[in-house]
């Protein structure tokens, strides 16, 4: 096809050369002639392109019309060489790419009407199986074996202005929308706006789903001060903007939520009336130190009404919890060996100011962790934990963990974690946690 086209174009060019002298006036320079040939060539190329496109469209239509008929090879353009004897394919309609759909040729399963499937969102399911041995008398300690979470993700572009992401989390007993939000991708002024239910931009761990954490659990400070596994996750509106400057990546995020956050074991915010909304603010600075290392710093603030004296109508709604957080992440990954070696060191410090009838509780907590990748599939990590309790700052829990992670492939992960926790009340816990994580469906983005 290409060769034939070349002959034709040569012929056209030659024709132009022959015709040229007879029609051109005496003043015409060789340069003008050349321009003319170039123009002809361009016209021809355009024509070729046009016909090629039409032919492709026709082929696609033909393939679609043949429907469930025995597979006839309908080679995709550009894929012809590789797709000899390929199953029946259909060309993605123009504009599908604009909707986040694939482009090029797609296989057709079960007939022409299924062309609409290409607008289905990207779907993935992530299983998180958790097991625990050893002792832990805390009421919400993991059971011996559990399918801790099955997360279903649905993601697609909505229209030229927005995309939508849903993450439905099936626990052992309940189903929750972990996140479900619309992202407006191209608002003027560089505002990135999200509307829906989402994990708040408070620090680092709060923004992460379970399956991208470097541990099988969440740090003690998250459990004691930041709403536990659910964390600050609520219905609301988020606006983030880059602050232009010459030096670093700087992003400010402001969020307003209904005011309900935290899981049953560690409630954080509780809104009774409409004006008890909660706020989260986050400022993130990022800088590359070299091509293989970088530093990520953040400060966060959250404010909302807490659950103190909910049954007491006289004072209900007067109790506020404020959180302040600082987070720092250092990453190292040598580019040329990026799939074999890396290190991530991270820490978060959180200060909680919780009003309650007994007085203001000023609690502090932190974690410090490091994860080193020492092979294509192997990671080792450690974490130090300490946190006061939100409702009684005089009680301080501490702990530490060692983690070993193995990746059979990009889509599955096996992890073991030894965890020791010294609770302020009760016996210390010594546990070995193990986890299998596996993902099927669309290829998600790698976490950063």
């Amino acid at each position, binding site marked *: 096809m290409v060769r034939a086209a070349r002959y034709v174009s040569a012929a056209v060019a030659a024709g132009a050369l022959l015709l040229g002298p007879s029609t051109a006036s005496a003043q015409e320079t060789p340069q003008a002639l050349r321009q003319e040939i170039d123009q002809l060539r361009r016209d021809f190329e355009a024509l070729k392109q046009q016909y090629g496109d039409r032919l492709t469209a026709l082929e696609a239509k033909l393939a679609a019309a043949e429907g469930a008929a025995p597979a006839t090879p309908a080679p995709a353009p550009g894929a012809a060489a590789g797709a000899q004897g390929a199953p029946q394919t259909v060309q993605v309609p123009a504009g599908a790419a604009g909707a986040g759909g694939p482009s090029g040729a797609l296989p057709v399963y079960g007939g022409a009407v299924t062309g609409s499937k290409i607008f289905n969102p990207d779907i993935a399911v992530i299983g998180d199986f958790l097991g625990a041995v050893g002792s832990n008398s805390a009421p919400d300690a993991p059971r011996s074996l559990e399918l801790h979470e099955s997360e279903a993700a649905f993601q697609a572009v909505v229209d030229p202005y927005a995309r939508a992401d849903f993450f439905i989390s099936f626990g052992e007993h309940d189903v929750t929308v972990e996140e479900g939000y619309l992202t407006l991708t*191209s608002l003027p002024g*560089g505002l990135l706006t999200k509307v829906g239910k989402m994990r708040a931009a408070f620090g680092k761990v709060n923004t992460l789903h379970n399956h991208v954490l470097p541990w099988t659990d969440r740090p003690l400070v998250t459990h004691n001060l930041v709403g536990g596994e659910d964390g600050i996750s609520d219905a609301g509106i988020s606006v983030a903007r880059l602050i232009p400057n010459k030096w670093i990546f700087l992003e*400010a995020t402001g969020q307003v939520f209904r005011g309900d956050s935290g899981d049953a074991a560690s409630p954080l915010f509780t809104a009774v009336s409409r004006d008890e909304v909660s*706020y989260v603010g986050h400022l993130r600075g990022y800088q590359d130190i070299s091509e293989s290392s970088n530093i990520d710093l953040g400060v966060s603030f959250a404010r909302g009404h807490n659950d103190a004296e909910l049954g007491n109508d006289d004072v209900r709604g007067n109790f506020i919890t404020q959180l302040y957080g600082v987070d720092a992440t250092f990453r190292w990954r040598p580019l040329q060996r990026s799939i074999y070696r890396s290190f991530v060191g991270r820490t978060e410090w959180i200060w909680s100011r919780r009003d309650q009838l007994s007085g203001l509780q000023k609690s502090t907590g932190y974690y410090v962790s490091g994860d080193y990748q020492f092979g294509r599939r192997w990671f080792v990590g450690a974490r130090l934990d300490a946190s006061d309790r939100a409702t009684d700052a005089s009680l301080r829990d501490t702990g530490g963990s060692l983690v070993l992670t193995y990746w059979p492939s*990009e889509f599955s992960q096996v992890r073991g974690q030894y965890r020791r926790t010294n609770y302020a009340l009760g016996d210390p816990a010594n546990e070995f946690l193990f986890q299998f994580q596996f993902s*099927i469906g669309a*290829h998600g983005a*790698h976490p950063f």
Partner: protein
Amino acid sequence: MKRIILLFIALALAAAPARAQSKLTVVATTEDLAAIAREVGGDRISVDSIAKGYQDPHFVEAKPSFILKLTRADLLIVVGRELEIGWLPPLIQQSRNGKIQVGAEGYLDASLHAEILEVPQGEITRAMGDVHPLGNPHYWLDPENGKRIAKDIADKLSQFRPNDRPTFEQRLADFTTRIDAAERRWTADMAPYKGVKVVTYHRSFPNFAKRFGLDIEGYVEPRPGIPPTPQHTLDLINEMKRQNIKLVLVEPYFDLKTPNAIARETGGQVLVMPPSVGGVKEVSDYFKLFDYDIKLLIDAIKKTGAK
């Protein structure tokens, strides 16, 4: 509620509209596409790239510094075929740049007119490893595809800057002429070694092999994206001995331990062969990529007597 409104007003006020620059700002996901864009765009555009030529393009980190590059881009050129699926979508999403969203005018998938090999047939599952359902994305390693990519880029640039169309077309014609000449040279250099058998680490070289007559007989990876296993390595060594294969081509970002062991066992040679511009220091443009790879191959073939 007032506070909410104030917050929004404050954020809106802080928003200063970005000014368009006179030079078209082009960001390519890889150095190869950036090199071709430079050939076509010349001084009318400024070109930046994201992945380095010596890093595995499947596993680039979605660093915020890349978001800054995309924020300012008029045009984003991607390899496509899901090569960048693990890292580009979050970057585009956070770029706040409507121009370069997938399907928008400033989003160019360079693979659309290229010859794509290894489009999977029949049922595909992840049991086959990290397969690319839309075909092998390493298609730029064929100069013919280089010309197709260049044409797509020239068309796109002309769409943005109609006044510069003659410049872009002139540069495209010039690039095409030089590629044609170089390709004749490369093909002639490789002609005596047509059908020479090699093993590669990852499936990065099908287009290169097809164009220049290499015969890829096996892979160090048992499946795409799956690191070598002892059994597979043993099988590969036996196969190489049986067929007398001497050359193991390895992309610069893979560990050389297994390839070196294979070469020791088979009396062969490991070639660290960059599949991308920037893969080694000398390869600073699209032409030098083929110059370098072909010289590397021919020297090794001569040395090992590979057939």
